[in-house]
């Protein structure tokens, strides 16, 4: 059985960056990602007291995607906010040439925009798989759907991304 972080601070330290990346790729803007991470940590803090030993990652990502979906419902918005100019520049490697870096940023922009055009179910499945790195079984637990559904969503999401990026 996997070990479980004892405190929400530990969860924040260990998983904070992952949750932020998940949130950013789903929402497409840093402010929403910021808010979502804090909401997730609040829910983790509340939930740890009643946490039943099991798949901690499944539990954590279920909380995360539920927080995201609640936010969507609450604000009645579609997360298609235009990207800021400096998106994806934060971890720029100083050794890269300006041209190759510009190409990399532009490519990242295109992919991010394409992700935001996916239906939410497909987007979260693709992001959980390719950004967060969860297995299909973990994604199934997080999204409370059968593995076959996860497989279908990831595949259809990638096909839609391909059409958008062409």
């Amino acid at each position: 059985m996997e070990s479980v972080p004892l405190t929400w601070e530990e969860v924040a330290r260990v998983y904070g960056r992952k949750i932020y990346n998940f949130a950013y790729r789903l929402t497409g803007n840093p402010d929403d990602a910021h808010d979502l991470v804090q909401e997730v940590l609040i829910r983790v803090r509340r939930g740890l007291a009643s946490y039943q030993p099991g798949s901690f990652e499944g539990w954590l990502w279920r909380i995360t995607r539920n927080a995201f979906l609640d936010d969507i419902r609450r604000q009645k918005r579609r997360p298609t906010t235009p990207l800021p100019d400096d998106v994806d520049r934060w971890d720029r490697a100083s050794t890269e040439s300006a041209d190759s870096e510009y190409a990399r940023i532009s490519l990242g922009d295109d992919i991010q925009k394409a992700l935001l055009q996916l239906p939410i179910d497909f987007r979260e499945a693709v992001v959980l798989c390719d950004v967060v790195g969860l297995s299909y079984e973990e994604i199934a637990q997080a999204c409370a759907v059968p593995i076959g559904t996860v497989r279908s969503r990831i595949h259809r999401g990638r096909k839609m991304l391909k059409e958008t990026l062409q």
Partner: protein
Amino acid sequence: MTHPSESISAYLDGELHGSELSQLVDHLGSCGRCSAEMEDLQRVRAAVRSLPVLELPRGVVPDADPVVVPLRRHKGMWAGVAAAVVIAMIAIAALVTPDPQTSLYELNSRFGARASLDPAFGPAKIVVPPLVSE
């Protein structure tokens, strides 16, 4: 011919097993359409995975800076006992807590590798989460 399109993404993710895996591999060997689709999906998958990992901006996770927690002004014996216990704990923490300027070599020798690998390892801290309105 039936094209097992949906299995291709699962195959790329290492999520295909047993007879389903062998059937797809056989099929890919004889079907140009599915082979081409696999190449397309592989490119998309690699593109999403190439997105840069974003660092957590400061302030997203509450800072673990030490803060002063005021003692409640209880009078009587138990308040005195509690104050003595707190003072003793602070004194012990001061003795066992590594100085921020302590070298990695010294930290390693005292506390093991975690001291230099884990940025959260450091002085004992009292964390007060931000007030949140529901």
